[in-house]
C-alpha cells in the first residue's frame, strides 16, 4: 500500500511538475494571507501587516525549493536533469561535439552497413531445411576441382551411394518463351524430380514434381517462381493447369514456389522444368553439364561422403575408362558452393570497417580524455562545493552516453542509406547470381550487432573520463592548476592511442593501396582483344524452328550479313561462348601420336569467319576462318598460343591434325591458324589451351554476336532490332559493350569494389589518425607553454622550439609507421586471392604509404609547432 502511495506521489511530482508547483505556490500564499489577516486583527495597519508577513516568509522561492527537495531526489528526475546538462555542455563546445559525433557515426555507419552484407551472405543460414546437411556434389578433374557431372554419371552416383538421403541434379537453362511480341529469353533451370524435396522447399501453390517425372518421355511440366507468377499470371490460383510455351514446346504449369525460395547457383530462375534427358549431351557419359546437390544421411560427415563418392567414382573409372578416366568426386558444404566466392571479400571489408570503427573509437576516446583534462578544474570546484564523487562521475557517464546516442542515431540512419546505395551499385546480373542478398536489410541480427557496438562504445566513453578522474586528486587539481602528474599520465596514454591509430591507418592504407594496385594489374592484363568499339549480343535460336544444322548455319549467316551492312559496323562475327566467361572443354588427341587415353582437356569454342577480326585478335601464324570453311570442305581448327606451348612445344603446329578423344568416328581437324591468346576465362587466371572450330562445320543454336562498330553504345539497340526483324522468334540477351563486360566481370568488379570501399575506409582512417596526432601534439605543446617560455627567455631560438615539438611528433609517427608496416604485411596476406600481380610485401606500396603518412603527420604537427614557436615568453611566464 505504502509503496503504491509513494510511487504515485513520486510520479506525480515528476510528471505533473507544473501543477505541483502551482499548488505549492497557492498553499504558501494562503499562509501569508492568513498571517496578514491575523496581524490586522491584532491591530496593525494593513500595510504594516503585509510587510511583516512577507518578511517572515522571506525567501519564498527557497522554501519552494526545500519542499521540492523534501519530496525526494527523483532518480528519473536526476537523469533528465543530467541529460539536459550534458546536452548543454556538448552544445557549449561544438567543435569537440561535432568531431566526436561525426567520427563515431562514420565508424558505426561503415561497420553496420558491411555487417548487414556479411549477415545476409555468411551468417544467415541458407533458406532450406537443415541447411548444414546439404552438400554440393561435383566431379573432380585435374584442371577443375569442382566440375560438372555427366547425366549418366549422376544416375550411377545416385544409385550406388550410401551416404545421401537424396541426390538431386540441377542445370541453368535459358528457355525461349513465346510471347505475342516474339520470343523472349526466360531464365530457367532443369532439375531432377527430387530437387525441391532435397532442399526442403515446398511449392506454395500446386504441387512438387513427382518421382519419375524427370525421366525421358515424361510429359512437359513446369514450376514457376513467385515473381513470374505474380508478374505474368497476376498471382491468380488458376495459373495452375495453364500451358506456357518454352523453347517451342508447351508445358503445363503444376506449381508455384514460395516467394522466398531461391537457389543462387542457377541465379534467379523463373521456370523450373524437370530434367527429361533428350539432347545427345544428356545421354553421353563424357558430356558434363549438370551439378549435384545432396542431403547427407544423419550421422554422415562431409569427409565420409567424399570417401564414399570417391570410391564410386573409382569404380566408374574402371568400368568406363574411355569417358571416366581421371574423374574423381568432390563433396563440399552447400554454403561453400553458394557464398564461397564472396566470403573473402566480405571478410576483408568487414575487417576494414572494423578497423575504421576502432580508429574512430580511439579518436573519440582521446578527445574525451583531452576534454576531461581541461575540465579537471571544473570538477575539482564542484567537488569542493559539495558534489559527491558519484554525482560528478555520473555526469561524465551521462555525457558519454549522450554523445554515443547522438552518433548512433546518425550512424545507423546512415547505415540504412549506405546499404541501399551499395546494393544499387551491384550490377544486375551479378545481383541475380547472389540471390542470398535478397534478405539484406536491417534485421534483428544487424540491429543486435549495432546495439552491441553502441553499447561497447558507450561503456568505453563513460569509463574513459572516469579512469582519468580516478587519477585526479581534487585538491591537487585546485592548487596546481592545469599541470602536474595527471597531465603526464594522460600524455603517456594519449601517445599510445595515437601510435595505435597510426598503425591501424597504415594497415588500411596499405590494404587499399594493394587492392588498387591489384585492380590496376588486372586491368593491365592483355585480354588478347581490343575492347574499345566492340559490342556483344547473345542470341538464342529456337531448336523447334531451326531443326537442322543447315538451318542454324543459314540463320547465323543471315544475322552476320544483316549486321555487317549496318552503317558504322566494321566487322562482325560470332562465337559459342564469349571471352572472359570460361566455357566448354573437350578432350583432344594429336593424330599420329601414341595415345593411351589421357585427358588432354582444352577450352573449346565454335566461332565464325570474322570473329577474330571483330575482336581485334592477332594471328601469330596461319590463317583465319573464311566463309568457305563449311561442311563441304575438310574440317579445320584454329588454336591459341597456350595450346601450341602445351602440345606443340617442339614441332610446328600448323598443318597437324587433331582428333576428339571421345569421338573416334569424326574426321581429323587440320590446324590452319595460331591466334595470340584471347582471355577466354577470367582476367586474373591463366589462359587455358584453346581450340576454335569453324561455326558452319560445328554449329550451335546459342551464340554471341560480336560487332566492331564506330559508336559502340549507339549500335546496340539497332543490333537487337536487326536480329528481331530477321525472325521475331530469335531471342536476344546480354547486350553490352566489351568495356562493360570487362568492368562487370567478377575479376575486375570484386577488386574494384574492394579497392573503393577499403580505400574509402583507409582515407577516413588516415584523416582520423592525423587529427588524433595533431590533438596529442597540440595538447602536449600546450602543456609545455611555460617550459617553452623559460627556454625562450633564456635565449632559445625559434628553430629549437620547432625541433622540440616536431621531434615528439616525429617519434610518434615513426613508431606508428613501423608497427603499422609489420601489421600491414601480416594483414595483407589475409587478402589472399584478391591480390593480383602484387604481394603484401610489396616494397613500393609500403614505402609510398609510409611516406604519405609521415608527410601528413609532420604537416599536422607543424601547426602546433608554429604556435609554440610564436609564444611570447613574457606572456607565457606571466600567464601561469
Amino acid at each position: 500500500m505504502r509503496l503504491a502511495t509513494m510511487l504515485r506521489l513520486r510520479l506525480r511530482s515528476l510528471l505533473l511538475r507544473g501543477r505541483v508547483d502551482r499548488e505549492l505556490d497557492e498553499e504558501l500564499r494562503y499562509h501569508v494571507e492568513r498571517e496578514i489577516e491575523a496581524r490586522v486583527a491584532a491591530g496593525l495597519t494593513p500595510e504594516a501587516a503585509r510587510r511583516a508577513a512577507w518578511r517572515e516568509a522571506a525567501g519564498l522561492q527557497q522554501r519552494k525549493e526545500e519542499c521540492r527537495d523534501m519530496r525526494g531526489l527523483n532518480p528519473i528526475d536526476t537523469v533528465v536533469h543530467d541529460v539536459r546538462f550534458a546536452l548543454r555542455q556538448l552544445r557549449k563546445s561544438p567543435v569537440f561535439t561535432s568531431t566526436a559525433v561525426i567520427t563515431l557515426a562514420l565508424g558505426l555507419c561503415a561497420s553496420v552497413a558491411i555487417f548487414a552484407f556479411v549477415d545476409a551472405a555468411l551468417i544467415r543460414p541458407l533458406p532450406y531445411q537443415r541447411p548444414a546437411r546439404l552438400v554440393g556434389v561435383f566431379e573432380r578433374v585435374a584442371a577443375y576441382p569442382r566440375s560438372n557431372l555427366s547425366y549418366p554419371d549422376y544416375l550411377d552416383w545416385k544409385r550406388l551411394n550410401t551416404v545421401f538421403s537424396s541426390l538431386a541434379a540441377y542445370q541453368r537453362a535459358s528457355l525461349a518463351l513465346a510471347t505475342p511480341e516474339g520470343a523472349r529469353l526466360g531464365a530457367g533451370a532443369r532439375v531432377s524430380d527430387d530437387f525441391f524435396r532435397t532442399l526442403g522447399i515446398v511449392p506454395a501453390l500446386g504441387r512438387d514434381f513427382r518421382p519419375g517425372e524427370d525421366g525421358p518421355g515424361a510429359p512437359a511440366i513446369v514450376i514457376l517462381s513467385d515473381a513470374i507468377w505474380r508478374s505474368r499470371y497476376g498471382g491468380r490460383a488458376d495459373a495452375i493447369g495453364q500451358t506456357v510455351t518454352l523453347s517451342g514446346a508447351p508445358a503445363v504449369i503444376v506449381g508455384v514456389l514460395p516467394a522466398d525460395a531461391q537457389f543462387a547457383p542457377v541465379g534467379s530462375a523463373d521456370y523450373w522444368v524437370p530434367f527429361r534427358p533428350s539432347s545427345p549431351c544428356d545421354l553421353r557419359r563424357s558430356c558434363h553439364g549438370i551439378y549435384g546437390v545432396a542431403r547427407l544421411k544423419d550421422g554422415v560427415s562431409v569427409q565420409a561422403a567424399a570417401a564414399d563418392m570417391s570410391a564410386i567414382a573409382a569404380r566408374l573409372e574402371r568400368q568406363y575408362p574411355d569417358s571416366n578416366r581421371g574423374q574423381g568426386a568432390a563433396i563440399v558444404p552447400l554454403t561453400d558452393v553458394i557464398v564461397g566466392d564472396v566470403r573473402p571479400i566480405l571478410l576483408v571489408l568487414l575487417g576494414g570497417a572494423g578497423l575504421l570503427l576502432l580508429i574512430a573509437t580511439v579518436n573519440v576516446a582521446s578527445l574525451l580524455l583531452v576534454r576531461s583534462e581541461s575540465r579537471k578544474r571544473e570538477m575539482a570546484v564542484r567537488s569542493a562545493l559539495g558534489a559527491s564523487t558519484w554525482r560528478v562521475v555520473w555526469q561524465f557517464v551521462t555525457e558519454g552516453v549522450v554523445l554515443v546516442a547522438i552518433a548512433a542515431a546518425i550512424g545507423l540512419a546512415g547505415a540504412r542509406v549506405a546499404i541501399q546505395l551499395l546494393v544499387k551499385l551491384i550490377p544486375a546480373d551479378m545481383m541475380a547470381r547472389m540471390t542470398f542478398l535478397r534478405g539484406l536489410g536491417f534485421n534483428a541480427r544487424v540491429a543486435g550487432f549495432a546495439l552491441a557496438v553502441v553499447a561497447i562504445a558507450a561503456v568505453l566513453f563513460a569509463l574513459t573520463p572516469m579512469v582519468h578522474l580516478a587519477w585526479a586528486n581534487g585538491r591537487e587539481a585546485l592548487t596546481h592548476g592545469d599541470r602536474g602528474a595527471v597531465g603526464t599520465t594522460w600524455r603517456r596514454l594519449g601517445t599510445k592511442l595515437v601510435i595505435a591509430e597510426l598503425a591501424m591507418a597504415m594497415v588500411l592504407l596499405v590494404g587499399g593501396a594493394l587492392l588498387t594496385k591489384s585492380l590496376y594489374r588486372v586491368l593491365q592484363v592483355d585480354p588478347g582483344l581490343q575492347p574499345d568499339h566492340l559490342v556483344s549480343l547473345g542470341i538464342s535460336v529456337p531448336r523447334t524452328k531451326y531443326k537442322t544444322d543447315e538451318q542454324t548455319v543459314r540463320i547465323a549467316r543471315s544475322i552476320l550479313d544483316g549486321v555487317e551492312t549496318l552503317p558504322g559496323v566494321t566487322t562482325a562475327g560470332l562465337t559459342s561462348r564469349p571471352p572472359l566467361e570460361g566455357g566448354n572443354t573437350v578432350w583432344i588427341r594429336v593424330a599420329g601420336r601414341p595415345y593411351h587415353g589421357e585427358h588432354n582437356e582444352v577450352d573449346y569454342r565454335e566461332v565464325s569467319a570474322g570473329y577474330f577480326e571483330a575482336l581485334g585478335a592477332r594471328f601469330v601464324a596461319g590463317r583465319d576462318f573464311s566463309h568457305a570453311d563449311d561442311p563441304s570442305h575438310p574440317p579445320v581448327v584454329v588454336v591459341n598460343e597456350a595450346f601450341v606451348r602445351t602440345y606443340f612445344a617442339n614441332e610446328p603446329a600448323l598443318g597437324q591434325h587433331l582428333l576428339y578423344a571421345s569421338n573416334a568416328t569424326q574426321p581429323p581437324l587440320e590446324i590452319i591458324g595460331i591466334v595470340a591468346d584471347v582471355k577466354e576465362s577470367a582476367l586474373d587466371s591463366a589462359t587455358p589451351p584453346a581450340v576454335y572450330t569453324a561455326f558452319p562445320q560445328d554449329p550451335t543454336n546459342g551464340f554471341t554476336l560480336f560487332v566492331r562498330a564506330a559508336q559502340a553504345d549507339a549500335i546496340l539497340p539497332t543490333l537487337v532490332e536487326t536480329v528481331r526483324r530477321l525472325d521475331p522468334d530469335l531471342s536476344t540477351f546480354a547486350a553490352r559493350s566489351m568495356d562493360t563486360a570487362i568492368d562487370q566481370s567478377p575479376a575486375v568488379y570484386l577488386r574494384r569494389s574492394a579497392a573503393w570501399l577499403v580505400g574509402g575506409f583507409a582515407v577516413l582512417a588516415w584523416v582520423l589518425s592525423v587529427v588524433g596526432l595533431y590533438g596529442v601534439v597540440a595538447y602536449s605543446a600546450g602543456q609545455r607553454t611555460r617550459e617553452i617560455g623559460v627556454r625562450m627567455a633564456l635565449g632559445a631560438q625559434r628553430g629549437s622550439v620547432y625541433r622540440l615539438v616536431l621531434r615528439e611528433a616525429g617519434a610518434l609517427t615513426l613508431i606508428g609507421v613501423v608497427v603499422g608496416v609489420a601489421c600491414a604485411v601480416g594483414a595483407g596476406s589475409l587478402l589472399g586471392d584478391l591480390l593480383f600481380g602484387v604481394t603484401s610485401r610489396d616494397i613500393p606500396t609500403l614505402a609510398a604509404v609510409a611516406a604519405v603518412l609521415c608527410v601528413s603527420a609532420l604537416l599536422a604537427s607543424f601547426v602546433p609547432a608554429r604556435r609554440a614557436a610564436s609564444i611570447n615568453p613574457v606572456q607565457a611566464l606571466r600567464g601561469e
Partner: protein
Amino acid sequence: MSKPTDLVQGTLDLLILKIIALEPMHGWAIAQRIRQMSGDILQVGQSALYPSLHKLEQHGWIRSEWAVSENNRRAKYYTLTKAGRTALGREAAQWERLAGAISAIVRTVS
C-alpha cells in the same frame, strides 16, 4: 516578536502528527495551534513547516486534499493516515523516553 525557540531536531514532525491527529488541518492552522498549545513558546515558521509537511506526505504518514477553509477560501488540508498514526505512536513513545532521560540527567546535575 521574540525569536522562536528552536525545536529539537525531528520534534516538529512529532508535533505536526500529534496536532492533525485531532482533526484535518491546513498549514497555517497547524502553526497557530502549535503556538497556542505551547503557550506561545514554540513558533513554527513557514521555512520549517512546509518542507516538513511535504516530507511527511512523501513518507505516506499524512495525506493532503484541497478543501474550503473556515474563511471560505481554498486551502490544503492535511490528514493523518493509518501509517501516520502508527508512526505517531512510535515517535511519541520515543520522545517520552528521550525527554524522561534528559530531565533525569538535568535534575541530578542541578
